[in-house]
C-alpha cells in the first residue's frame, strides 16, 4: 500500500477537533471538558465556537471526570479530553465509580497515548492505560489508526450510548484510510486479505502492519492485515474466523503487551480456536525521551518488528 507512494501524514487532534465542531453544531447535548490542555489537544476550537458548552476545570482530572458524570446524569453527552498519562492516570476511581458503573454517556478521549508522545519522556507516556480501561466493565475501548479513523470513530462514539475510552496519539501519523472510512465500533476492518497468517493491529501500529504486509508479500508470505480499532467489545467472531483461516496471528500495539490487544485476541482465540499468537508491543517497560520514530524503533514497534515476528511464526509451523 505504501510502496513508493507518498504517504499523507495528518493529526488525530485536528480530526478530534473537527469531529467535535461538527457534532457540536448538530447536537446541543454535546459538551466538552478540558483540563488545561485544551489548546494542545485543540478542543479549544470547540470552546471558541461553543463557549457555553465548554468547561475548563484546570489541572484537576478527577474533578473533570466527576463533573462529566453529573452532566451525563442531567442529559448531556460530555467529551472529556486531556493527555492519557492523566486520564486515566489520575482518575481511575472516578472513571470506574462515577462513569462506568452507572454506565453513563461520558466519552473519554485521551490524547498522547503510548510512547510515540516522544521527548516528554516516560512520565507523559502511557503503556498501562489500555489494560486498565479494558478491565473496567461497561467501558468500550477504541484506538483509531489515523486521523480519518479518529473522525469517524468519534462520530460513532456519539451515536453509541454509554461510556468510551478513545485513545489518540500525539504525532502526525500516516493516513491508512481515505477521507471517510466505513468503521463501526466493535467491528474490525480487514485491510488486506491473506492466508498464511493474520496481523491484527490498532492505533499507529496499523500503518506499520500494512508496511509489514508489503514486505512479507515480497517474500511470498501472505498476511491478512486487520485494524482492530475496537479493543472492547472485541470483534471475537471475525478474529476467531481469521484464526481458523490463517492458523497464526501476530498482534501489534503501542502499549504494554500485558492486558492490551494481544491479550484481548488471546482471550477469545484460546478458547474457540487456539493458534500461535506472537505479540508485538511494549514489553513491560517504561518509555523514555526521544523522537517518535527513534522510540518506536527502540521499543520494538516498527514494521520490521512485525515482519520478524511474522516470519518466526510462519517458520515454526
Amino acid at each position: 500500500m505504501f510502496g513508493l507512494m507518498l504517504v499523507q501524514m495528518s493529526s488525530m487532534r485536528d480530526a478530534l477537533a473537527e469531529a467535535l465542531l461538527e457534532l457540536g453544531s448538530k447536537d446541543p447535548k454535546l459538551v466538552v471538558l478540558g483540563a488545561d490542555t485544551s489548546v494542545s489537544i485543540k478542543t479549544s476550537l470547540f470552546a471558541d465556537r461553543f463557549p457555553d458548552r465548554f468547561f475548563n476545570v484546570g489541572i484537576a482530572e478527577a474533578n473533570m471526570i466527576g463533573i462529566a458524570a453529573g452532566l451525563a446524569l442531567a442529559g448531556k453527552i460530555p467529551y472529556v479530553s486531556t493527555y492519557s498519562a492523566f486520564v486515566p492516570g489520575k482518575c481511575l476511581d472516578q472513571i470506574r465509580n462515577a462513569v462506568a458503573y452507572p454506565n453513563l454517556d461520558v466519552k473519554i478521549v485521551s490524547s498522547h497515548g503510548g510512547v510515540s508522545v516522544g521527548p516528554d519522556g516516560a512520565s507523559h507516556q502511557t503503556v498501562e492505560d489500555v489494560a486498565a480501561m479494558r478491565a473496567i466493565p461497561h467501558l468500550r475501548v477504541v484506538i483509531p489508526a489515523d486521523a480519518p479513523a479518529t473522525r469517524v470513530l468519534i462520530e460513532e462514539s456519539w451515536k453509541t450510548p454509554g461510556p468510551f475510552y478513545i485513545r489518540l496519539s500525539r504525532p502526525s501519523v500516516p493516513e491508512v484510510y481515505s477521507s471517510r472510512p466505513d468503521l463501526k465500533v466493535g467491528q474490525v476492518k480487514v485491510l488486506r486479505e491473506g492466508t498464511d497468517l493474520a496481523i491484527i493491529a490498532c492505533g499507529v501500529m496499523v500503518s506499520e502492519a500494512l508496511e509489514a504486509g508489503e514486505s512479507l508479500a515480497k517474500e511470498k508470505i501472505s498476511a491478512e492485515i486487520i485494524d482492530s480499532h475496537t479493543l472492547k467489545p472485541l470483534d471475537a467472531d471475525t478474529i476467531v474466523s481469521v484464526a481458523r483461516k490463517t492458523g497464526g496471528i501476530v498482534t501489534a500495539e503501542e502499549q504494554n503487551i500485558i492486558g492490551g490487544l494481544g491479550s484481548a485476541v488471546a482471550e477469545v482465540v484460546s478458547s474457540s480456536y487456539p493458534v500461535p499468537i506472537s505479540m508485538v508491543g511494549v514489553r513491560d517497560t517504561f518509555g523514555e525521551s526521544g523522537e517518535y520514530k527513534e522510540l518506536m524503533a527502540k521499543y520494538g514497534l516498527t514494521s520490521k518488528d512485525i515482519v520478524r515476528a511474522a516470519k518466526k511464526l510462519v517458520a515454526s509451523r
Partner: protein
Amino acid sequence: MEQTQIPFGMLLQKAVKIRTHILEMLAEAKSGHPGGSLSAVEILVSLYFYKMRHDPKRPAWPDRDRFVLSKGHAAPVLFATLAEAGYIPVSELKTLRKLNSRLQGHPDHRVPGVEFPGGSLGIGLSAAIGMALAGKIDKKDYRVYALLGDGELDEGETWEAAMAAPKFKLGNLTAIIDRNGIQQDGLTEQIMPMEPLAYKWKAFNWHVLEVDGFDLRQVIEALEKAENMRNRPTVIIAHTVKGKGVSFMEWDPAYHGKAPDKDTVKKLVESMRQQ
C-alpha cells in the same frame, strides 16, 4: 406533581420513623454504617419533606431538584428516606445488603430516586457541579444538593470541586457537610485536622452557613438562604453528632461501620416510640 412537602410540625415524626428504619435495616443486614446515617437524618428530612421539588412517581422528571449523597456509606438514611417519600416500598428496606436486592451497601441506580452512586468518597460534589452546570445550560431552575461527610473532605477531589463551583457561579448548588467530627479511624481533628473549616470554604469563595444539623428550623432556613444566592454556591456546615439518637453510639467511632444486633434495636425502637 405529587405533594411531597409536609407540615413543619410533622417533620420531627418523620425523623423518628427514619431513625427507626435505619436501625432495623442495619440489624437485619448485620452490617453497614449506622453512625453517619443517624447523624444525617434531619438533613434528609428537611430536603425530602420540606425543601426539595421532587416527585416519587416521576424519579426522572427533568425539572426535579437533585440530591447527591456523596458520603454513600450513609445509604441506609437515603433508602429509608426514599421509602418514606414513596420511591420504594418500606417493606423493601429489610433487603438492604442482601443478594439480588436493589438496596446495595452503597446507593446506586437500581433504586429509583438515587441520583448518583456515591461510595468512593470525594466524587459527589464534582458530580453535583455537573448537574448544576447542565441546569444552567438548559436554563432550568432546579437546584442541586450534595451531602458530604466531614471525613470525606480529606479527599483532594473535594477541593478541586470547591475551586470549580464558584468559578462557574453555581448559585443553584448547595453543599451540606455532615460535620459529625468522626471518621472511621477516629476523630477527624486527630486523623486529618479540618479546622478552621468555615474559613477554608470562605477562602474558596463559597457562601458559608453554619447550623445545628438537628434543628430542622435552622437547617431549612439555611437551605432557603442558599436559594437566594444568585451566582454563588452555598455550603452549609451542619454540626451533628455521629450515631445521633442512640446513646451508646453517639461519639463512638466504633459505630462508623458496625451494625447493632436485633435485640438491642428492638429495645431502642421501643424507647424511641415512647418518647
